[in-house]
């Protein structure tokens, strides 16, 4: 034979065992690459951008030239790619797995929308170009408005708010302006906020100068109507109500709540964070709402991007439409015009919320999402979102303790009763989910439930995905009850880092890198 001597073992020869805590020399662990801070890997003289030469000129900086170095680190392009790709791999993401954060609506982010947002007629136009040159961009804003109005049945929409909380502020400022016009700003001081509300609600009402009056929940997790009746009065400016509420429940008495507030001369602000549960099943108008923000980054799937950007357009009833902030869109012949100054306005805008017109990049993505789904698809979204949540509620209730009886809307709320006397807390349980490859649910919120666990699967999970998730959680719950606490208190063991010391971070804050640390 002509023996080729390059043969080598091609089936594993070990015994399948590996050291529990294999230490590596590089600090990397296989695909999980070690990556120091930018300021440790970069250097001031490095650069990943080629620029043309600076032409001859006489500087006109008025004697304010910088004479000190900044100390910014630079990277060549290949180094930059490595730095950020390595860091990216330390993140959980929707594209990686089920992300059941209640109240956050972590649904699939279609990539078509990313492509469209980058079209030059949206991405490469300046907010202050002549309006005659941006009719396509204005037309898109008008189309988005039409869709939001159709879905909610409301009379007008304010596009400027840059996120949910900014939208809350917009809606509450419209209410404030309406009350001011009635001459009641000194007497209508109180805003009713359920204790289950997001923290942004009381913070927003306070920012508008109102006093906050908390509404407790009843035994079914909804607004306690008895107590609400005692709190209603001529000094009530508004109620801020999330519907479906943060317990994942539809406020059954919502029409009566609206009537009570309206009869007392107040307004109904609805936090629209959970619109994903009711699109196409009811219209906000028919629930008696005066103002509601819509988190485009939740319901309409613009990517969360590690914490933003978002967008929070506000739909308004006829009573409030006149107070919408600047700038706003009006018809202008065949095209569109932006009203940018109060002096051009026939309405009574409460003011200006930011320098320009709102989150255009989010508008494009949200509209693309809506058109892709259409009237039939949007209704199906809500139905599937609610179906998925109830399916998990049904399956998980075998071992976990639902906070309330009955069905839920788009998210299922559990308390920590099933962990009683196990030595495992909600936090431990959540961290153990990380080892199973899942992002934990929202925990310890809403505050009305002990050790809350709020699970929102969204409509973009398949039944198989939900079943795998439920199987894992049921096994974890059984394990906790069987006394295997170490697995929980030590979790996560398989994430890039173990549990972090948040006490140390808060007691001695280190908020930036410093050269002296190197």
């Amino acid at each position, binding site marked *: 034979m002509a023996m080729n001597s390059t043969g080598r073992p091609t089936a594993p020869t070990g015994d399948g065992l590996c050291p529990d805590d294999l230490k590596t020399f590089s600090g990397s662990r296989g695909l999980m690459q070690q990556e120091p801070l930018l300021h440790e890997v970069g250097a001031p003289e490095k650069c990943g951008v080629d620029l043309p030469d600076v032409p001859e000129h006489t500087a006109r900086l008025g004697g304010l030239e910088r004479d000190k170095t900044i100390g910014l680190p630079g990277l060549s392009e290949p180094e930059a790619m490595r730095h950020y790709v390595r860091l990216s791999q330390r*993140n959980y993401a929707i594209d990686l797995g089920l992300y059941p954060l209640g109240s956050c609506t972590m649904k699939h982010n279609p990539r078509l929308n990313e492509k469209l947002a980058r079209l030059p007629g949206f991405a490469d136009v300046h907010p202050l170009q002549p309006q005659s040159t941006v009719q396509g961009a204005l037309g898109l804003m008008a189309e988005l408005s039409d869709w939001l109005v159709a879905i909610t049945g409301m009379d007008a929409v304010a596009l400027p708010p840059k996120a949910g909380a900014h939208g809350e502020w917009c809606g509450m400022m419209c209410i404030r302006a309406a009350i001011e016009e009635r001459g009641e700003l000194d007497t209508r001081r109180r805003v009713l906020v359920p204790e289950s509300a997001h*923290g942004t609600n009381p913070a927003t009402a306070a920012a508008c100068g109102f006093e906050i009056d908390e509404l407790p929940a009843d035994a079914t997790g909804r607004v306690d109507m008895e107590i609400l009746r005692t709190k209603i009065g001529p000094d009530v400016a508004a109620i801020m109500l999330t519907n479906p509420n943060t317990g994942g429940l539809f406020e059954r008495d919502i029409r009566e709540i609206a009537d009570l507030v309206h009869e007392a001369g107040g307004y109904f602000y609805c936090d629209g964070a959970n619109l994903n549960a009711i699109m196409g099943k009811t219209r906000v108008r028919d629930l008696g709402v005066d103002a509601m923000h819509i988190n485009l980054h939740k319901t309409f799937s613009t990517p969360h*991007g590690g914490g933003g950007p978002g967008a929070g357009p506000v739909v308004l009833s006829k009573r409030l439409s006149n107070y919408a902030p600047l700038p706003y869109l009006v018809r202008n012949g065949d095209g569109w015009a932006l009203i940018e100054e109060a002096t051009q306005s026939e309405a009574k805008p409460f003011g200006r919320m930011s320098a320009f017109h709102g989150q255009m990049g989010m508008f494009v993505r949200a509209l693309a999402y809506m058109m892709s789904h259409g009237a039939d698809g949007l209704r199906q979204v809500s139905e599937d979102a609610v179906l998925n949540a109830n399916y998990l509620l*049904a399956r998980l209730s075998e071992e976990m303790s639902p906070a309330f009886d009955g069905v839920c809307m788009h998210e299922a709320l559990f308390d920590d009763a099933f962990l009683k006397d196990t030595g495992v807390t909600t936090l431990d349980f959540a961290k153990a989910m990380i080892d199973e490859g899942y992002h934990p649910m929202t925990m310890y919120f809403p505050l009305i439930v002990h050790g809350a666990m709020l699970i929102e699967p969204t409509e973009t999970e398949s039944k198989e995905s939900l079943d795998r998730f439920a199987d894992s959680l049921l096994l974890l719950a059984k394990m906790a009850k069987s006394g295997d606490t170490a697995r929980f208190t030590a979790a996560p063991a398989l994430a890039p880092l173990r549990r972090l010391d948040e006490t140390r971070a808060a007691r001695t804050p280190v908020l930036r*890198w410093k050269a002296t640390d190197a």
Partner: protein
Amino acid sequence: MRYLPLNEDDRAAMLARIGVSSIDDLFADIPAKARLDGLIEGLPPHASEMAVERHFTDLSRQSLSAGDAPFFCGGGAYRHHVPASVDHLIQRSEFLTAYTPYQPEIAQGTLQTLFEFQTQVAQLTGMDVANASLYDGSTATAEAVHMAARITRRRKCVLAPGLHPHYAQTVQTAVQGETMDMQVMTPAMGADAGVVDALDDQTACIVVQSPNVFGELVDLEPLAKAAHAVGALLIAVTTEVVALGLVKSPGEMGADIVAAEGQSIGNGLSFGGPYVGLLACRNDRKFIRQAPGRFAGETVDEAGKRGYVLTLSTREQHIRREKATSNICTNSGLCTLAFSIHLALLGEVGLRKLAALNHARACVLADRLDALDGVQVLNQSFFNEFAVRVQGNASQIVEDMAKAGVLGGIPAARLFGTGKFDDVLIIAVTETNRDEDFDALVATLAEAL
């Protein structure tokens, strides 16, 4: 529906497991009167990817985009070249489709990049610390005013004559819910030093923009000294952060808080948003505790490994509720990442050269325009944006230039309203402007006069 994985068999099986007979049983809590039985009226049915793309492409073509014209608009939003790798990296699934990093063990990518961003912003502004971003420069300015009022426990705030009028309006709107004494100085070129006259022992802060809305650079040092002498704070505003590569940082000149628009690094024009608000301040416990928004901070994990977490959260609405420093929750996460990556690619050397290039190109154009009959450059100093007085109505001239395919700047009246500065045009120049663009601007402007 391409985005919905459930099929009819799945739905039937799931309803059975839940123990209800139809999907509508799950919506039984909706009051009967408010239930929508058919489809939402007035909306089309679902559309294919191809159909949606076609519609948006048609809409996009109805605008004149900056890349298709000689382009000279600034006024708080600037067109710079962003390296391709920036957009590629921010679209990685792990960055794009992650939420706020509330579970630090599986969010170190976001947290470490935020920590790096905070350091870069602190360095660039010459301040000690920076937060993890706000919505944009204008809302950051409003938050800075609130912050200064809390720190000083005073209620008076003076807005300098050179502050972008949309920023001034944003601040005035933001303080409507409280009893602030706002003094908005009459806009004027070169009058920013006048804020000193408005200072008294009740003043919480003065808000001064540099380069200001006319492009003029402002020496903040004497203003900081005057403010500090009466116990007031200086809030420095910058809408074009590339300038900080060439001019003295606000921190060096004595600013207490910096509020800035970070769009011009890493982020496109995008018709006004999303942008990225920068907020930086002194390393003083009183300042940090009164700051709005998120902070990423360094710590260690159980095994002693360095890591990052969101920290000092008791300032924020999810814990402090109505007593929070701000109602902000969502910030500009992905835009901070674009900012941070672009700035990392530039580095010290690149940013300084980019800034020098912007300034030099602006000087070249300013000289060419100044030589035109009927055009006069008004600035004593500038970075990459300056104001010119034109013979005639600047708004009309800009419209005429646009018809000729040139986006020749922003008429001051667009910012200040008509009646003030009607003959003033504000022109911005960046590294993206070529000599041919200058030729086209000079030619169409001469034509339009």
